[in-house]
């Protein structure tokens, strides 16, 4: 039994998943089901840090890196369910399937960050993606949602095929798919052939697709816009973190000894992602699209941490994803809370209508822009620090220059909320459901807390 210790959180979640599978069949009560899922995810989170180690001959590993990211996924799951409790686009009778898929994809993400072998990694990525394809189409009668699902599915399958191709190439080169084995063999190989590059490119492109990094980002604005907002919130945090972490682990544990193999592709991806994400976000009038591009840009910053290829880089990646989860989920909750939330005009004069929500949105926006005293600043700071430490000063400077652009589009929303006077207001007074209020306030609190006392994350 001992070899399963490392997997206890996953086993717990699977066990609860099966329980919930039957419970949900009998009771079709939305509120009850939602709360059950939240309890499940909290209980799983409690097991995270007590069990660490390896399983299946090192194929599966639970270390600080993976466990902290699993915490991000469970936070993501908890908040995503919490904000969809009263969301109308998800029908009552579908909520059970919806939450089931969310748990399943969370489980897949947890497996992704723990995989130290390409085959289980591929399986986990597929499991996650299949759930997401379905989730994106959960606005059953909404054509945009259907389109999003279809688009995501077709392009996603293509990426998976490329992934498999890369794995095949690696197996041909090294005779193993295990990260440790690959790194051992790679260390002793003198010359690097075109096959090395092909395999690396294929795997990196597939994972970049899942993380929505440029130039594989085209699907994400359409899917983010079309999918139900709660699903978009869920997708913009968890899967992105999982894919970025997978890239990070793959590079750090398998390819670290041969930087010439991955340095150029990763820095190209990082630069392109930061540039395109920030430039294209400038003129978006749909907030979900805007946040889609902004999340592309954020993936670019995280790529800088991957580029560092150091333990500091890995820990800054984790910190970034934790903070990012809170600020992004917070921003999406505000979109949900505002009845006109998808259009940028819907924020005109929000402060006069609902000051608390507007102030919280201000926190999220400034945090996303990386302005202190919010968590986003510390996160960005650590990422840039790790990149500069590894000697990538020039790329860091470019990243910083592009992030100046980001200040503009985040401020645009703040401008609409605070500067537009009441006459131009499209939003009427609205009440915010208590579940959304809770999520928004909690997230704003955490974003400020991470900015002022970031030490307590490191303490974990």
């Amino acid at each position, binding site marked *: 039994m001992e070899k399963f210790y490392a997997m206890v959180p996953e086993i717990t979640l699977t066990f609860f998943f099966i329980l919930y599978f039957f419970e949900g069949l009998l009771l079709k009560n939305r509120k009850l089901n939602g709360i059950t899922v939240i309890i499940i995810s909290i209980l799983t989170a409690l097991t995270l840090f007590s069990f660490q180690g390896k399983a299946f001959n090192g194929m599966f590993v639970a270390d600080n890196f993976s466990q902290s990211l699993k915490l991000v996924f469970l936070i993501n799951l908890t908040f995503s369910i919490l904000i969809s409790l009263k969301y109308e686009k998800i029908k009552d009778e579908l909520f059970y399937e919806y939450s089931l898929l969310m748990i399943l994809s969370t489980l897949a993400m947890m497996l992704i960050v723990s995989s130290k072998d390409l085959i289980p990694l591929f399986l986990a990525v597929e499991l996650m993606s299949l759930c997401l394809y379905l989730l994106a189409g959960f606005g059953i009668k909404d054509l945009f949602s259907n389109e999003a699902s279809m688009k995501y599915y077709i392009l996603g399958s293509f990426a998976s095929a490329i992934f498999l191709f890369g794995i095949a190439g690696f197996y041909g080169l090294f005779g193993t798919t295990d990260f440790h084995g690959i790194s051992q063999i790679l260390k002793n190989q003198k010359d690097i052939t075109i096959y090395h590059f092909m395999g690396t490119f294929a795997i990196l492109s597939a994972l970049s697709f899942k993380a929505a990094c440029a130039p594989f980002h085209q699907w994400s604005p359409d899917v983010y816009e079309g999918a139900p907002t709660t699903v978009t919130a869920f997708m913009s945090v968890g899967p992105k973190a999982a894919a970025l972490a997978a890239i990070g682990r793959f590079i750090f544990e398998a390819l670290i000894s041969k930087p010439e193999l991955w340095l150029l592709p990763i820095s190209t991806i990082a630069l392109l992602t930061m540039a395109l994400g920030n430039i294209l976000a400038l003129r978006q009038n749909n907030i979900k699209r805007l946040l889609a591009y902004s999340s592309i840009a954020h993936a670019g910053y995280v790529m800088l941490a991957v580029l560092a290829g150091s333990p500091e880089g890995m820990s800054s990646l984790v910190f970034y994803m934790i903070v990012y989860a809170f600020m992004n989920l917070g921003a999406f909750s505000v979109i949900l809370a505002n009845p006109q939330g998808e259009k940028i005009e819907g924020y005109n004069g929000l402060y006069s209508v609902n000051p608390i929500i507007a102030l919280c949105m201000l926190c999220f926006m400034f945090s996303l822009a990386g302005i*202190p005293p919010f968590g986003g600043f510390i996160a960005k700071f*650590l990422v840039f*620090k790790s990149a500069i430490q590894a000697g990538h000063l020039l790329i860091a400077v470019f990243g910083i220059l592009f992030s100046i652009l980001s200040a503009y589009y985040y*401020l645009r929303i703040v401008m609409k909320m605070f500067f537009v006077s009441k006459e131009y207001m499209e939003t009427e007074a609205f009440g915010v459901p208590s579940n959304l209020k809770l999520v928004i306030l909690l997230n704003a609190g955490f974003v400020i807390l991470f900015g002022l006392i970031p030490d307590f994350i490191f303490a974990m």
Partner: protein
Amino acid sequence: MAETTFSYPLVSFIIFFPLLGVLLILILRKETIAKFVALFVTLANLIISLPVFINFDKTNPHFQFVESYKWLSSINAQYKIGVDGLSILFVLLTLIISILCVAVSWSAIKERVRLFYAMILFMETCMIGVFCAMDLLLFYLFYEAMLIPMFLLIGIWGSANRVYASVKFVIFTFAGSILMLIGIISLYFMAGKTFDVTEILKIKLPLEFQYWLFFAFFAAFAVKVPMFPFHTWLPDAHTEAPTAGSVILAGILLKIGGYGFLRFSIPFCQEAALSLKLFMQILSIFAIIYGAFVTLMQNDFKRLIAYSSVSHMGFVTLGIFSFNQVAMEGGILQMINHGIVTGALFMLIGVIYERTHTRDLEKYGGLGKAVPIFVLFYTFFSAAAIGFPGTNSFIGEFLVMLGAFKSSIYIGTPLILGIALGTTYMVWLYYRVVLNEIKADMREQLYDLNLREIVMFIPLIFLVLLIGFQPSVALDYMTSSVKMLLEDLFMNSALTFR
């Protein structure tokens, strides 16, 4: 002598006391109470801070009242604060200006009153924090956090073109400061993983790195000062901001740039600063002359004063980069003076704008007959802005000029033109506003100052005359710190250049 501590965390208390006021304003949901809370908090903060000024040891050039706690221990960033001769006067200036900002907004702000005063108090926390931070990351945190309240102050309560001005302000400042962030991170690794200012000072940085670092900091502080050619945000921001916003901008924010040069750029990059001396001096002189010429052409009351800031701040940077005791003290004193005098001028404009609702100088004229008390104050502060003997600016400009001539006659001579132009635009402005005939449609709107308005100018008059007649009150605080700065500068660089 070394760093000294104090029996209780006094400086922290001064920094965070206004935040308590913010909380209080947010808890008390009454709009009408907010201004009383803000006034009480700012006044109380000044009184609380008195022990700092009483117990400050003027002969000790090092940091005093130091507090140091762990903050982000994984990267060795500390919560470390203290004051020394360079920063103590700015802290005092911030405390005074904050009170005046509340007073000047008393009847002008009618919308979203709670948010307004909360932002003013938040601003006070950040500003004092910036001047007291002894850790680079902490400094950066306060420095950037200031953007948020300032953005809202300009954007919500500003005049017609406020949105453009606020965004321009934030983008300019953010762009500058984020380049500084790169500098800070690089410095962190060069200096052996520390953000502590006093630790970094002990380390000798390679010359090439010094140049890069100097320009990284230059990007942030030159925008903030603002030095020519990074000044274009300033006229917009000053003009569109509400009176309190303009006062804070002119009074404190611009000074952070000059303070940054003194605290970080020069001590960290000593050789680089010395070899860039001429470059910085020429930029400063350009700002003085160019700023004065542009000021002459303005037809907007506030914009005119805003452009005059570019010219005045040129004196400050010239004083700092002349690298002698007299000029540097003059530069620092001139920052304080500019904060007092230009702050007062913006308050005067705010007061008159509340009555006339226009800043167009074409519509002004003959105020001398209509509002004599206003004109009394206005005359006084105009004279102070020109640098009339007996006022504080006279001392400041005189010291800077003395030091500039000491540095080189070619640097000193253009200043005469600068001062002459300065007198020209202020006198011509005076002519257009105070003398002349009063315009018909303005006559009914004008009424003279009330008691609150008179009271808020009195401390400023007192300060102008105090520094004007007894400058040692202010200069004594900074002498030893400036002396140490310059001694280090020349001693270290002499070693390398030899």
